[in-house]
């Protein structure tokens, strides 16, 4: 069962011809509509007319997250604001988010790709989709939502939080599909157990989990505890949102990336050299149909590999392996992107102090917990307990307000956080996520 069988099973030759046609038009578009791309293409000595084969994509320069930050907020948009019907944003290292804009066509494409993704995961029109991805500036909630409506399923816009209520609704409303982060699903399983509710009593059949990396071992745990088929979904707001790639329930061997809209490449993160199929490297994506904020060869920083081998599900689109980490220092905490440098600027904003800090990420009771250790030197120290507690709380509040992440600040004695010669080790991630 497929949402768009014609396009999902397009033979490789036809698919690649379509990609080339769209790529040429895209390069033409950004060259004339986006000053940033005009400049970078000219600097690379590339003219739109020079893209005549898919291999020519390698002549195009990369786009980095920094380029998006530098053009905050709307500098990379390829259309007039009048044509932008939706704006989303994700974390940026300077405390300012990276902003993306969508035209009506972009929203329609996103809905279509999300609908395809639902069907690939085993969801159908008659399902009741319990959507616990966060609704708001983040793309997760609304992305899944519009896809569900496009499919014609019944979507319950739960967003995150209020877990007891979520369990009650899952039970009373008869939810059949669950969409949320994998760690939240396990948290829900625990909460249900405490309420005396067995997931076997619920009607859940499929779970589509993403926004953070999760292993096969975790999949086994989720499927056992929630009594459903757990499917991995991939996406990022810079490219679109959730629905860029999806595991098919027939094989669960890699995630099909929708190649009629995205051209994926795997590169060596150090040299930028394109690697062959099967090799692990950084995923680079070129959007070939986006109108609002198209990107050429965007460096996702996610490490994966690609395969063009035919899949038993019948879809001809290539598959990327499950994510095995990042090539930068970004953390994903309960589905939220956090850069250590963001915490650093928050700490520096307090009385202009430059405290030494350490981030420790753990998983307790299936939820990510972030501890921020801050050294108390003479400038930070106060003789009164209430002042030190107020300091901890204000740091926790700033982190929560600016980054959307709950943390626990632990004040430690000076020089207890290891110093290093080179780049300071700011993060200890105790979670194990090897696939």
């Amino acid at each position, binding site marked *: 069962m497929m949402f768009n069988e014609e396009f999902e099973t397009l033979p490789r030759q036809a698919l690649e011809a379509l990609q080339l046609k769209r790529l040429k038009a895209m390069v033409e578009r950004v060259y004339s509509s986006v000053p940033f791309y005009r400049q970078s293409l000219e600097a690379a000595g590339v003219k739109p007319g020079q893209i005549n084969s898919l291999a020519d994509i390698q002549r195009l320069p990369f786009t980095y997250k920094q380029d998006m930050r530098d053009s905050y907020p709307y500098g990379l948009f390829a259309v007039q604001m009048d044509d932008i019907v939706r704006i989303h944003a994700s974390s940026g290292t300077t405390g300012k988010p990276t902003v993306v804009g969508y035209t009506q066509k972009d929203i329609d494409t996103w809905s279509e790709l999300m609908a395809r993704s639902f069907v690939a995961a085993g969801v159908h029109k008659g399902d009741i989709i319990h959507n616990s991805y966060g609704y708001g500036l983040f793309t997760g909630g609304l992305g899944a939502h519009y896809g569900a409506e496009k499919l014609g399923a019944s979507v319950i816009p739960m967003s995150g939080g209020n877990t007891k209520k979520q369990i009650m609704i899952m039970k009373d409303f008869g939810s059949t599909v669950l969409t949320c982060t994998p760690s939240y699903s396990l948290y829900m399983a625990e909460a249900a157990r405490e309420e005396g509710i067995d997931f076997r009593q619920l009607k859940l059949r499929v779970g589509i989990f993403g926004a953070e990396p999760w292993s096969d071992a975790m999949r086994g745990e989720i499927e056992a505890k929630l009594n459903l088929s757990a499917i991995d979904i991939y996406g990022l707001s810079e490219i679109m949102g959730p629905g860029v790639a999806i595991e098919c329930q027939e094989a669960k061997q890699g995630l099909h990336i929708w190649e009629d809209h995205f051209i994926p490449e795997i590169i060596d993160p150090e040299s930028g050299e394109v690697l062959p199929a099967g090799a692990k490297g950084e995923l680079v994506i070129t959007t070939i149909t986006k109108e609002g904020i198209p990107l050429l060869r965007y460096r996702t920083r996610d490490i994966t590999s690609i395969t063009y081998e035919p899949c038993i599900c019948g879809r001809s689109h290539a598959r990327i392996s499950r994510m095995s980490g990042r090539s930068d220092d970004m953390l994903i905490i309960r589905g939220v992107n956090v850069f250590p440098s963001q915490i650093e600027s928050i700490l520096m904003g307090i009385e202009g102090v430059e405290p030494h800090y350490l981030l420790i990420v753990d998983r307790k009771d299936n939820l990510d917990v972030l501890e921020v250790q801050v050294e*108390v*030197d*003479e400038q*930070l*120290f*106060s*003789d*009164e*307990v209430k002042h*030190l*507690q107020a300091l*901890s709380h204000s740091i926790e509040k700033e982190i929560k307000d600016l980054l959307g992440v709950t943390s626990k600040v*632990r*004040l*430690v*004695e*000076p*020089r*207890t956080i290891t110093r290093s010669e080179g780049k300071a080790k700011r993060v200890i991630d105790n979670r194990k996520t090897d696939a």
Partner: protein
Amino acid sequence: MQVEQISIFIENKSGRLAEVTRVLGEAGINIRALSLADTSDFGILRLIVNDREKANTVLKEKGFTVSKTEVVAVEVPDRPGGLSEILQSLDRESINVEYMYAFVERCGENAVIIFRFDDTEKAINALMRNGFNVLAGERLYSM
């Protein structure tokens, strides 16, 4: 009329408190009064010592975070109701007590209590106006 107190940040790790007292002991510092404020995450050790400069130096050398705080030492009649009289006077004048603790030695017939006020000047004036005896730091350190 103020007294200089040393405050030390203590992480909630085993042995830290012992380390502080060891360092002071080895440096020949005599602790005259002490109080330990604790939370689940950390503690603040407050000390009145005989040699503040030396204590400050040796603790900092060992990597402790140390600060100096102004506190007030008051003579309290050593009988039931003694402390209550002082606190009621302060209360009448709307003076806020942040914390307090007792001193090791007596001053003649009287006990000595160390107070931290949010307004030290105002508190000293009020205490003296009400007939209570405030002890100078210099006297206290070597008592």
